[in-house]
């Protein structure tokens, strides 16, 4: 790793991190630079979510986050859920008016994102009425609408059809300069990330470029007890 580039975004140095008393990251050393597309893989409970959240806490000012469980407001429409992505940048009165009557400008900003994710016709449907895959797209759309250079995503396509998932990941890579995402599907990670970090039991097992990851390494990651 090239540690003296000025564009280093995160760095963890032999850190131990616990989150909600569940998974603990042990002795993690890691640096992520601007412009990287990183994929986190590993079996359930390996600490992917904890790592992502840790990264998010350090750079929340400049990053958007896609939650694994979407973190949407089921009672609000798709449109309003996406709008939530920029709540902190608008005045309170703008936000309140938007609840009742969305401005044309805001519509023009949000509709293309929904269009590119294939859920534009559902713009004013309550999120609670959507399917899991659709909700996940809304969560992605909200993160995109935030227009940050860093996008952290926790299993952003877990509920989306495999053949559509690629398009969503492609879009994520397009809109954000730096992307860190955890992915359950290894083949997607290998295809859409340039750098792959394998996590197991709270420890970094490997940290390689996508081309360097071999089936043997993967088998080792997922099969050890």
């Amino acid at each position, binding site marked *: 790793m090239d540690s003296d580039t000025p564009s280093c975004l995160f760095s963890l140095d032999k850190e131990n991190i616990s989150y909600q008393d569940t998974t603990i990251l042990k002795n993690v050393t890691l640096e992520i630079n601007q412009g990287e597309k990183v994929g986190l893989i590993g079996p359930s409970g390996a600490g992917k979510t904890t790592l992502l959240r840790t990264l998010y806490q350090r750079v*929340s000012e400049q990053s958007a986050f896609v*939650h694994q*469980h*979407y*973190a*949407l*407001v*089921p*009672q*609000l429409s798709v449109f*309003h*859920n996406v709008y*939530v*992505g*920029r*709540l*902190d*940048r*608008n005045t*309170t009165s703008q*936000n*309140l008016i938007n*609840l009742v009557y969305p401005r044309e400008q805001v519509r023009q900003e949000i509709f293309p994102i929904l269009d590119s994710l294939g859920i534009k016709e559902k713009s004013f449907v309550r999120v609670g009425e959507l399917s899991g895959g659709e909700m996940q797209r809304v*969560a992605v759309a*909200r993160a995109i609408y*935030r227009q940050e250079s860093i996008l952290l995503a926790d299993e952003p396509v877990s509920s989306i059809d495999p053949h559509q998932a690629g398009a969503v990941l492609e879009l994520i890579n397009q809109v954000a300069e730096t992307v860190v995402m955890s992915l359950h599907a290894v083949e997607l990670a290998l295809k859409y990330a340039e750098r792959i970090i394998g996590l197991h039991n709270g420890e970094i097992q490997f940290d390689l470029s996508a081309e360097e990851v071999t089936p043997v390494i993967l088998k080792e990651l997922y099969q050890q007890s």
Partner: protein
Amino acid sequence: MLKTSLTFVGIAFIAVVLADLEVSTQHPWLEMGRMVEGVFTPELSVIWEFKASLLNTAIFALCGTFLGVILGIGLAFFFQFLPVRLFCAFIRAIHEIFWAFIFLPIVGLNSICGVLAIAIPYAGIFAKVYAEIIQESDQQPLEGIPKDTHRLSRFFYGVLPVIYADTKHYTAYRFECALRSSAILGFIGLPTLGYHLETFFKEGMYSEVAALLIVFYFLIASLKYWLKPRLVPVYVVLAFALLSREISLSWENVARFFTYEILPWPMRRQGIHDGTYTVSFVLIPVLEWVKAIWLDEAWEGIWKTIVLTQIVLVGTGLFSLFVFPFACRHFAGKVTNRIWHYLLIIVRTTPEYILAYIFLTLWGPSMLPAVWAILLHNGAILAFLSSNNADLVQLRIDAPFKRIDRYFYEILPRVYGQFLAFLFYRWEVMMRESAILGILGIYTLGFYIHSAISDDQIDKAMLLILFTAILNMGIDSISQVVRRRLKISTKLSIAS
């Protein structure tokens, strides 16, 4: 759970021994016959004659609930602070009728008195329940909201949409309660339905009573057809518009109340005797005054209130455990279910004050009418709820066929926790009602408070109301401890 239940049954048993539960009328059935006759010959013309009181009942309830909601929301935001929680516990520990007694000398016997008497205690209730709803609501949506979002935006995007349905449901339920409160405020002289109900009861004009009760049931049963969220603002504006025409607030009265009338008698005594109406600050006589009221009245009132409450608490429990199977699909056929369902709704819709009035007429004065009135009203609510919960239970295909086995082995164990939680949740409500029914002549706190009001001794009434509130807050916190210890929650069923 069993141990706690049996302890309370034991306490109630002792209370029954101590209580005066005599039937003192010699011909209770005769009066009962006249009442039944009245039910079948309702004098419907009075509905038109007293339409203004019907309207007032609705207006007071609407304006009272609305103000209560606004104040309640405001308080709910600060509910994490102990002083706010105590304040809310205090204002809701005082029954609407007692609030009316308090506001009577301040604003006079008019609409504001009725609206405030509902709004103030309801604000305390709303604050508590709204805060609980927020606390127990889904927190996930909040995670998606950017960190630096303003509180208000955060609330409107991340909290309000999530809690809206529960809140709406509970508020609607409370509005129904407010209609009941509003109606019974008439019994002490406000211009609502209870005003005429009391008169007709007193004069034994049961056909007129029946007619007024029928409109009252109709008003409540029809709620779902006219109380649409969209129309609520219209109703509220109209209600306040009508209310505002009757408002006459005299600052002179307000000032006199707070700076003179609520002062303990010993402080005013000298001024009244020499005609100067000045106030003197005398500590020792004031303490003696408190002591005398405590010994002569408060002590007995508190004792009787507790005795009545404990009987009613257990009675309500036993009643609903006995009755709910009739309304539950696992024990009876559809027709029986329906009939009991409606019966329970009618009983719970009838304010306990009115039930007490009926039983008092039938059985004469003792604790008995009060016991049955509070027991039936709360028992109906609880039985209704328990049968709904029991209906949710899916029985195994090989569940016991005998109903008694089914009841004790399959249904009761599943619904008992919830049942107990709700029973204890209503403990404080029962105590408030026990105190209030003293107005009808049993020597609970309400009797002494009403006497003090009758004698125009507002200072004494305030002190007694203060004692009542403290007692209630005590029961409220004991109830919370018991529920926490038994690890039971009313979460599912706050709004029936």
